[in-house]
């Protein structure tokens, strides 16, 4: 208990150096998951590298070409309130706004949530639907991975020892797209029982582009090109939505847990998909 080292680096390079020097140490971002895990005795890092002073990890920026960069230390409350997340990027803002409760949103960060990769966490399907890229830095330098390739399995990511998450980047989407995140949970503030993130663009009542990702129904978010193809070019009618939702339910790999049975999750996926898409489509009327 008392042997834990504490570090307060000012730069990303310094933080990476500390991580590489002690692979059993962990980065401390907002503490919302790491400290909870330590309190439960599930994690006993040999050192903590607090990232709060690393200025390059903080804040949300939008560049002239339409990309948005969300620094890893950006808290959920900041993402939820950011006016820079418009159009399809709203899916990320919307997800941030329903994570846990206000005090937790004042603490937790996007980098921490992405690194922990709880499959029921709200950011995961939202980032997959937004085609987000995760920027990572390690001793071998920086690299970027699309969210779909970053989330590998239950609580497992492509992050290697000695690497840390620097930022999440959102590519410019179609200017008229809308983003929505629909979460089914037992009570407000709980993790999702099942969730659907959608980025939709419609032209004259026809779906011109859609991205759909299902959360909390398997080891990582589920996104299927067949499901999206079933909707593009059509009017999002009942039959097409049933096909798209059914494909996602078939691809899901949910488990029985305290929130719901696997069967229940498979049952609700098509209904959540329909609700999420319909809700996004209302913005085009």
């Amino acid at each position, binding site marked *: 208990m008392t042997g834990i080292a504490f570090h307060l680096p000012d730069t990303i390079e310094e933080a990476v150096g500390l991580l590489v020097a002690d692979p059993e140490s962990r980065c401390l971002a907002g503490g919302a998951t790491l400290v909870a895990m330590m309190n439960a005795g599930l994690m006993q890092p040999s050192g903590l590298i607090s990232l709060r002073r690393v200025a390059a990890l903080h804040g949300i920026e939008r560049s002239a070409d339409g990309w948005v960069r969300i620094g890893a230390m950006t808290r959920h409350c900041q993402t939820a309130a950011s006016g820079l997340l418009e159009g399809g990027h709203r899916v990320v803002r919307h997800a941030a706004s329903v994570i846990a409760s*206000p*005090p937790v949103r004042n603490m937790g960060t996007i980098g921490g949530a992405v690194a922990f990769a709880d499959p029921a966490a709200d950011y995961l399907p939202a980032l997959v639907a937004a085609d987000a890229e995760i920027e990572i830095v390690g001793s071998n330098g920086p690299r970027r991975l699309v969210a779909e390739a970053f989330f590998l399995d239950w609580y497992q990511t492509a992050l290697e020892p000695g690497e840390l998450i620097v930022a999440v980047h959102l590519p410019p989407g179609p200017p008229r797209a809308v983003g929505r995140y629909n979460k089914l949970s037992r009570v407000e503030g709980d993790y999702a029982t099942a969730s659907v993130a959608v980025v939709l663009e419609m032209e004259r009542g026809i779906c011109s582009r859609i991205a759909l990702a299902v959360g909390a129904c398997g080891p990582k978010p589920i996104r299927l090109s067949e499901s999206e193809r079933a909707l593009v070019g059509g009017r999002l009618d009942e039959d097409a939505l049933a096909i798209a939702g059914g494909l996602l339910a078939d691809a899901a790999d949910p488990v029985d847990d305290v929130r719901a049975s696997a069967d229940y999750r498979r049952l609700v996926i098509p209904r959540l998909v329909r609700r999420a898409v319909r809700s996004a489509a209302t913005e085009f009327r």
Partner: protein
Amino acid sequence: MIGATVTLTVNGRDRIIAVPVDETLLVTLRERLGLTGAKLGCNQGVCGACTVLVDGRPVRGCLALSINCEGAAITTIEGLGEGRSLSLLQQAFVAAGAVQCGFCTSGMLLAATALLAEKPAASVEEIRAGLAGNICRCTGYRKIIDAVLAVATGRGP
């Protein structure tokens, strides 16, 4: 460094405290500073009984490490009123009968204080959303919301 001293401004008073690295703010407040109003409930950030204000924002005392709070201004329930007198919101809780066992009360009051500082005329929906992270197992929430609403609508005691 293995543990260190941190300087916290707790309820307006500077405190220099030596803490182990893994000590939460909640433990420091309760066991080193004797401020036992913040409660240890789930120790997982879910129940809200440990809610305190850090630089004016409600956070979970059980998820913040004291060593990482250097320079922060902390407000606990002990710092809400002026001296021995209760804040308007505390008086409203008394008047509405919003307290039963009391375990959630300090967290509720701090979350509600932060909410009203941001939205002084908060609606019922905003109050419910603002207090969604604070669990009460006694009251059914009704009287807690009544108390906060009384202050938000200027009908406070």
